[in-house]
């Protein structure tokens, strides 16, 4: 069959009549992303509110963790309740690398991501044959085991060397920041940039060979195998990528100020992170941003209003129920649709009233 045998409607994929609409949507989306990045990069530090800067910095870090969870769950169909434990491992590795070496900060974060990636993949190996509830249980057990281990080893412990141990309660637990981002505002900007890079890394994957393989695996492993996809390899790839991003987040958290403590990584945080990731949405890339804000900024708001933080458990429970029942794509997809419907309804009402008045006039 030669090129001439292909009918005209098939010759140029991507040049269908709807192409113009798709292009303008892409431009609008790009403009939205740039505006959002501009707002968080420049607008937040301009407020000069150290408390909210720290809250939003931590939100950005948890956005990366939610992104890794959304990648596993939404793109590959693998559930993980161990991401917060991996985050703790990332934090620990970054601190130990910081104590033991004089590597520049960015190299420490990169190395942390790579080491966590290897560890996360190794931990995920036995889970490859599991799915659904069984995989959720195994990863939850892993998270619980890590919490116990952190307590037993007095995490993060500031002894010298990579495996050094200190009995001092005042041992350091913070990673030194790079010179160019030593102030809170500069470090906040650095974290936002790294978060954006993690999104870019995810987008590159989703739009290329692994993304297509993951889409096939998520829908039907049998169909993926029949298409020649090495399912084990691509699942491991997803685990490695998700663990890398979580490790990077751990590295960023280690230098976020105040130091790391074992109390930051309780097992239930893995479940809450899953809840907010589901609420934000696991398919839309805005979902993890919403999840990061729900995870860190919402509790801060409650504290500011003097409301008990236990309220969150109820709120998230209701939120997950609502999302699963009425907006399976999550808030990131549903809210813009609801707003568009609201605008349409309002404009219809206004037009109706104007028409009625003209009729009366």
């Amino acid at each position, binding site marked *: *069959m030669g090129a001439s045998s292909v009918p005209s409607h098939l010759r140029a994929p991507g040049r*269908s009549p709807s192409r113009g609409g798709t292009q303008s949507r892409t431009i609008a989306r790009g403009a939205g992303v740039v505006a959002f990045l501009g707002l968080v990069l420049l607008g937040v530090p301009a407020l000069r509110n150290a408390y909210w800067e720290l809250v939003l910095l931590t939100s950005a870090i948890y956005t990366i963790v939610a992104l890794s969870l959304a990648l596993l769950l939404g793109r590959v169909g693998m559930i993980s309740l161990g991401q917060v434990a991996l985050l703790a491992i990332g934090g620990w590795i970054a601190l130990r690398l910081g104590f033991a070496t004089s590597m520049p900060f960015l190299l420490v974060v990169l190395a942390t991501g790579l080491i966590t990636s290897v560890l996360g993949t190794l931990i995920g190996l036995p889970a490859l044959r599991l799915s659904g509830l069984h995989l959720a249980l195994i990863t939850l057990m892993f998270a619980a085991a890590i919490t116990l281990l952190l307590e037993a080893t007095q995490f993060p412990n500031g002894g010298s060397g990579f495996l050094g141990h200190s009995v001092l309660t005042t041992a350091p637990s913070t990673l030194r920041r790079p010179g160019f981002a030593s102030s809170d505002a500069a470090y906040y900007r650095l974290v936002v940039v790294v978060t954006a890079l993690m999104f870019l890394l995810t987008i590159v994957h989703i739009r290329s060979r692994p993304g297509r393989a993951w889409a096939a695996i998520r*829908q039907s492993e049998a169909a993926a195998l029949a298409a*020649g996809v090495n399912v084990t390899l691509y699942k491991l790839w997803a685990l490695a990528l998700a663990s890398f991003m979580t490790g990077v987040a751990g590295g960023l958290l280690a230098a976020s100020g105040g130091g790391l403590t074992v109390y930051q990584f309780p097992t239930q945080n893995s479940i809450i992170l899953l809840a907010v990731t589901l609420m934000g949405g696991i398919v839309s890339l805005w979902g993890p941003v919403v999840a990061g804000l729900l995870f860190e900024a919402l509790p801060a708001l409650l504290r500011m209003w003097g409301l008990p933080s236990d309220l969150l458990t109820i709120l998230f429970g209701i939120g997950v129920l609502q999302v699963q029942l009425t907006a399976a794509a999550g808030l990131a997809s549903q809210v813009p649709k609801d707003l568009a419907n609201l605008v349409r309804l309002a404009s219809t009402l206004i037009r109706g009233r104007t028409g009625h008045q003209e009729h009366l006039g």
Partner: protein
Amino acid sequence: MIEISNLTVRFGGVTPIDGVSLTFPGGTCGLIGPNGAGKTTLFNVLSGFVSPASGSVLAFGDDLLAMPHYRRARWGLRRTFQTERAIEALSVFDNVAMVHEHTGGRRSRRRQEVLEAIELVGLEVSPDELVGTLGTRERRLVEIARAVVGEPRVVLLDEPAAGLPEEETEHLSHMIRRIPEERGALVILVEHDMSLVSACCELTSVLDFGHLIASGPTPEVLRNEHVRRAYLGTEEEL
């Protein structure tokens, strides 16, 4: 050519395929039988989803059972499923392209070969269309396009007419006949629509309760009294 020798599959106490020896010489071959006869299980053995208790499968001289399942697609074995499994989250183009890229198709020829496969199955939608937005007919055709893209050597079609109206039979039979003619692939067609089997297959084999009960030219097989009895419990003509 596919040569199956003494193939037996056991699931606990059930034996869905029991000592079947069968040859598919080339072209389009029919594989029919009542529900539970072992047709899909045979496809699953060929695809590598089910390991047989005993027997051998030689495909164009290669030992198919010795290959890992995902490698079989790269070797040239393709299949569709009884319940279609086109990937909803991907566009029509990406659905077909992903098979091309995972089966060793050359990147420089990808666009051309993907479009040719879409044309072969007669899909008249934009390649950019998301599969999740398509109807049953189009999704079935996307799945078949996935099976014929690149250089397939064996194409297993599992009830391609299921869920489609009778008017589709003519289009399907025309399209299925084009696969061996234009791609040189051996097609094995599992189907309950006998008019489609008659229109496409020169040779047909019949399974019943895991046993081969007839094999030969399609018209003769469909007149075979064992086959009629297996299908209808009577000797009425199919």
